[in-house]
């Protein structure tokens, strides 16, 4: 047997103010999480793709001028951006009198840009972790509150029949369901981005010395 399934919407409309407030918070969390997921997905994917293509070109062509010109085509890649920062620093020095000092300056510029790139990549991602960790608890709070009201109703009606208790509990459980609906994509997104950003960071650490040595060799 089944009834018509407008029930979920009916439960939401019948929910108390606290449960509604909890649902609004969870809706906000869900919207922001999905926005971060969509925004970061495009950003990280572009960065990975352009970094890969740039590295291919970097090892294929030895001339630093050509590499710099080519890197202008990869505006969204992390590695090209770091390389450009090192190259700009190298050109700003003009005549190199002390190669060791020049190398240190370029290395500093590369490191600074690599750090900035890491921050840029991992910005907003911690919010996903926050949502993943807190949304189920917020939902649970709404559920506990709703169940408290249900028990109060049992006291008022002096009847513990399922018909008296079940509506309140099902209303309350909507909050837990909403919490899980907000948390699950957030956790999946957080794990995915942590993995991808970690891989880009490892690339940055690995290839930064290469960029420096290519510039100073010239």
């Amino acid at each position: 047997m089944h009834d018509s399934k407008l029930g979920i919407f009916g439960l939401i409309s019948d929910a108390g103010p606290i449960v509604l407030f909890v649902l609004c918070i969870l809706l906000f969390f869900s919207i922001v999480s999905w926005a971060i997921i969509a925004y970061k997905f495009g950003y990280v994917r572009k960065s990975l793709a352009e970094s890969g293509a740039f590295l291919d070109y970097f090892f294929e062509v030895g001339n630093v001028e050509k590499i710099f010109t080519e890197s202008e085509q990869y505006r969204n890649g992390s590695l090209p951006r770091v390389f450009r920062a090192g190259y700009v620093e190298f050109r700003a020095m003009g005549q190199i009198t002390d190669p060791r000092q020049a190398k240190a300056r370029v290395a500093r510029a590369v490191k600074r840009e690599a750090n900035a790139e890491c921050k840029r990549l991992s910005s907003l991602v911690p919010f996903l972790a926050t949502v993943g960790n807190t949304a189920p608890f917020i939902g649970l709070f709404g559920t506990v509150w709703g169940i408290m009201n249900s028990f109060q109703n049992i006291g008022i009606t002096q009847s513990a029949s399922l018909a008296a208790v079940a509506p309140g509990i099902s209303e309350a459980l909507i909050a837990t369901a909403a919490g899980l609906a907000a948390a699950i994509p957030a956790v999946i997104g957080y794990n995915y981005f942590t993995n991808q950003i970690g891989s880009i960071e490892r690339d940055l650490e690995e290839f930064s010395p290469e960029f420096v040595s290519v510039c100073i060799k010239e």
Partner: protein
Amino acid sequence: MKKGLYPFRTDRKFYVWIASAAAMHLLVFFLALALLIWESGRHVRTRVVNVTFVSLPGSGGAQEISEPGQKTAAESSETETEALPKPQPAEQVSEVSKKKIPEEPQKTKPADLTRTLERLKQNVDRATRQTPSSLNNALAALKQKVNSQGSAGGTGQGSGSGRGGMGSGFGNGGTADPYKAQLAMIIQRNWEFSKHMMRSSSDMEVYVRINILPDGTIREIVYDRRASSEYLNMSVKKALEKSSPLPGLPKGQGNPDLWIGFVFTPEGIER
């Protein structure tokens, strides 16, 4: 440094994504709503029998039978027009109820049952006046049928209305069927409803139809219209589930299953 420009670009892009996510949530919400509405409207429209329930569970005493509400008038006109081409059930009921009169009044609730039967008679008379020729034909056919199945019909009524202390069925044609009246009594007996749980007093009508299998099992419950109180809706569902299995369908039923509609209202709850 010129990197300061980046946050502005990313923020603007991010706000676009926020708006997109909000739109996506709205879209999903409305799609789900539309899907549910479409799903509920997809069922075939069936004949609806209106029964107004006026019991307060737990009171234990006899309840008054309520007048059919004004709101059900439109519904009743619909059901009458649908029922007229097939006058058999109404006529069968009239025959059956004529038999019922001598048996029941002394045993239980004489005043209520007499009133009910009077109304039923009036309904049948009205219907007979409106379509005399078709009803005459149906009468002839039914007389033959009743002659052949007379004893079985008598037993059915006795058990059905003998328990009717709580009162209830009202017909717009189809309710006069003793089987349906019996169902209404059983469902009402299993209906637990408390006014303390109601949050509002408006829009307190639940239109429900149920699909009954030949063995009396309720296969499907469909809410045609829900009350604003989810508690009332749930109490109706629980009552129907608790009542399943209902008595088996009467013999001679043409279809393998039967759709019957009910209207649940908490009218008279203050009594």
